[in-house]
């Protein structure tokens, strides 16, 4: 699905990135610990998080994340918005919880980001 459809599904508000709503999203990762998120290396995935600080944008940048959705109505700060604009990463906010957001996206057919560690692949 593209980011516009995803925005509708999560009843999300676009904080930055209106011009990128046609970006295709096929994978999702979610969490509040960025070092847990940094193990995912599928490019162009969506990041769902309840964490609000600049390091979320940095993490998204390093992983080539397609867009970030903040849950439970959390909004990015001015610093985060500025960095996201520089890096071209759309930021959205939804009133829904992390669990519900993940559930809706999973139900819509979006896949888990494959976790590739030194051991086995976890799908």
């Amino acid at each position: 699905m593209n980011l516009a459809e995803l925005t509708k599904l999560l009843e999300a508000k676009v904080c930055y990135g209106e011009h990128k709503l046609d970006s295709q999203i096929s994978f999702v990762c979610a969490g509040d610990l960025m070092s847990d998120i940094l193990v995912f290396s599928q490019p162009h995935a969506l990041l769902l998080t309840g964490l609000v600080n600049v390091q979320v944008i940095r993490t998204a940048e390093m992983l080539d994340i397609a867009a970030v959705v903040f849950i439970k109505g959390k909004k990015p700060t001015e610093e985060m918005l500025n960095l996201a604009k520089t890096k071209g990463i759309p930021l959205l906010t939804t009133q829904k919880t992390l669990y519900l957001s993940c559930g809706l996206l999973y139900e819509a057919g979006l896949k888990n980001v494959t976790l590739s560690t030194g051991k086995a692949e976890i799908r």
Partner: protein
Amino acid sequence: MNEDKSNKDIKLEYPIKGMDFLAAGEASSNIKHTLQLIGFSPAIIRKVAIAAYEAEMNIVIHGSQGVLKTLINPAKIELVAEDTGPGIPDIELAMQEGYSTAPDNIREMGFGAGMGLPNIKNCADEFTLDSIVNKGTTLKVIIYNQ
């Protein structure tokens, strides 16, 4: 930042300040940008960016100060993160997924999941970690362009 283009290798060097969470990630961002300009593949760039960012965050969280050095040539990218932090008493333990000594205030910022070092190792083709308690830690990572 020093950029030395002699001998075809590109050397980048960034000082990293401990506990400066606002600037944290800028060095890795610059490294990533440089690799993009050179034209490395996105998969290689992502590996280097993740390793560099985790190493940079480790210095910010644990090291009082340090430096992140990068040596780039067509065959490989080498990252060296040196800090004058508290050192790691038990490297084997520190390498275990989920083991973290980061305090609660760091976890509230989204770090200290105990995944940093294992994740760096996972991105690396060669990984060396040397540490002396109360002196500091040196991490060396090589990622081959293949």
